[in-house]
């Protein structure tokens, strides 16, 4: 968001701009003043889609709060009241609940895009960190939001997740003290619901703040691109507006169709039927599953037989993304020119999806019917080991040893070469 060359012609606009140069800031951030690489493909749409979903969640969320009561005796009824009595309440709530899932879909694709094209590599490490901070805040916000309807999955999900922090039991009673502090009682109860509500309302605005830093950090080096090489001359860049605003809006219209299919035709497919039963602290549902976007990490938690190390492994599986810029020692960013890296990237993606699938299974369910049957726990352990091996062994070795393909000298050169061949 550096200096702007924005020159308003309208006198009133100029008067205002001289006193608060915010229009120039917008111009150089999301307007014609920001020059982006000319070769961005559709995978670069997901940043603006994530921004759109954040806006949708904040608008629908603020409206839902107008009809919701954060109290154990009233929360469940308030949600049913929204669904049945409030005008279009069903639409607003289904948009918010499915919107959370779609927000995660978009952000996961955005993160994977960054991994494949090397967007985390120098000089964009802090940009990558800020993205991970946004992701962690989203995880916390999503978890606390799921508790608010006060159904069985809300209650027991909250119980299991908060109990994770009881694993830090380094001296007698420490784990218990941490839990009492988190709950405001001796179990998940009304004080817990109220503080989760408060934080669920706060954190999205914290996310907005970090998003602004994320965009700021993006605009110093500028966007990465599918070739992963620096955009140099004016021939390599085009103005963000109208070229990428148009492309983003075109992608957005497709995305909204998908969002609408979920909201109108399968609004509960991402949820769990048990959450339409009011929370009951005396009865645990037979099978507790977190929301789908946490499942890979839940499998890693279950794969470790020790409580403390399971929790550490689960947190480590996310925090390890922070050191990815240094684990990857390649001089080339984009996996387009790193065939072995690309192969292992897809394997990593498949493995993580499989970890997520295993998260829905009971530990002793048979996954592969051979050698007397291999259960979900064993498969989870194998997949978890591969997950960490990808970061600790595969990426450091492959990035330093693989033979890469020739990289074009500039973005405009690669476009000209492609035209010659065609």
């Amino acid at each position, binding site marked *: 968001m550096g200096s702007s060359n924005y020159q308003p012609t309208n006198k009133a606009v100029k008067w205002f701009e001289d006193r608060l140069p915010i229009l120039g800031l917008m111009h150089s951030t999301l307007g014609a003043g920001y020059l982006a690489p000319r070769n961005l493909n559709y995978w670069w749409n997901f940043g603006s889609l994530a921004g759109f979903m954040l806006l949708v969640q904040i608008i629908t969320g603020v409206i839902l709060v107008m009809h919701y009561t954060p109290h154990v005796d009233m929360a469940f009824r308030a949600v049913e009241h929204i669904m049945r009595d409030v005008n279009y309440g069903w639409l607003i709530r289904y948009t918010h609940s499915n919107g959370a899932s779609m927000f995660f879909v978009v952000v996961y694709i955005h993160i994977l895009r960054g991994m494949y094209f090397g967007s985390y590599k120098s000089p964009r490490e802090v940009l990558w960190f800020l993205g991970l901070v946004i992701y962690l805040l989203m995880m916390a916000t999503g978890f606390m939001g799921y508790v608010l309807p006060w159904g069985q999955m809300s209650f027991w999900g909250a119980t299991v997740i908060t109990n994770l922090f009881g694993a830090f039991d380094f001296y007698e009673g420490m784990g218990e003290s941490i839990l009492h502090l*988190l709950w*405001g009682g001796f*179990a998940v109860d009304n004080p817990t619901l109220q503080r989760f509500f408060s934080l669920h309302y706060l954190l999205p605005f914290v996310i907005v703040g970090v998003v602004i830093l994320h965009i700021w950090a993006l605009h110093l080096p500028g966007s990465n691109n599918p070739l992963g090489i620096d955009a140099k001359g004016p021939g390599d860049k085009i103005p963000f507006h109208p070229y990428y605003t148009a492309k983003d809006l075109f992608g957005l219209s497709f995305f909204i169709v998908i969002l609408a299919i979920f909201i109108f035709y399968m609004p509960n497919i991402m949820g769990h039927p048990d959450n339409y039963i009011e929370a009951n602290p005396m009865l645990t549902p037979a099978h507790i599953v977190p929301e789908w976007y946490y499942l890979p990490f839940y499998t890693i938690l279950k794969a470790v037989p020790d409580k403390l190390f399971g929790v550490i492994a689960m947190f480590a599986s996310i925090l390890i993304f922070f050191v990815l810029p240094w684990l990857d020692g390649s001089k080339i960013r984009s996996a387009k020119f790193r065939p072995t890296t690309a192969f292992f990237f897809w394997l990593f993606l498949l493995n993580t999806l499989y970890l997520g699938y295993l998260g829905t299974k009971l530990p002793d369910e048979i996954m592969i019917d051979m050698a007397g049957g291999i259960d979900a726990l064993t498969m989870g352990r194998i997949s978890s080991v591969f997950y960490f091996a990808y970061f600790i062994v595969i990426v450091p070795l492959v990035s330093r040893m693989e033979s890469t393909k020739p990289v074009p000298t500039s973005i405009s050169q690669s476009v000209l070469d492609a035209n010659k061949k065609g």
Partner: protein
Amino acid sequence: MTTKDQVEHEEEVTRRDFLYVATGAVGAVGAASVVWPLVDQMNPSADVLALASVEVDLSTIPEGQTVKILWRGKPIFIRHRTAKEIARGIAGNNDPMVDPANDQDRAVKPQWLIMVGICTHLGCVPLENTEFQLGEHGGWYCPCHGSDYDIAGRIRKGPAPRNLDLPEYTYLTDTTVKIG
């Protein structure tokens, strides 16, 4: 007008250094004392603590039955154990265990087993398994991650790190117990 003790040399501890450190230290204590109420408000409040004990009449619980009551927002299991179950608990005393305990130390009166009905793994409520319907140790079985407790609430198999917790309780009369 410089007197001898006011001359400042480099790397010498001066009166000014002391004042910096002392001021900073007092400031830090002040900041911490302001932060503490903001943290401590999250701990259980006075009304939550006030509900911390409950009295139960045991005479209404027939032998071989378990009653679940709510204490501090947590389920409490009160099992009226049969003579056979007590014998089974004592017989298991020397089995290998994660958290070894004697059956005699698990209950003040052996026929009344009073425990917090919360799995010590991640807080689910274990299901009753005294007829060996679910697990192989015939006490309680946690549906969440498969922790298997015996008839004294001792963890025998699965991820839970401790036996089921025992609440503090005292017998007011032969058949009335005060939990908490």
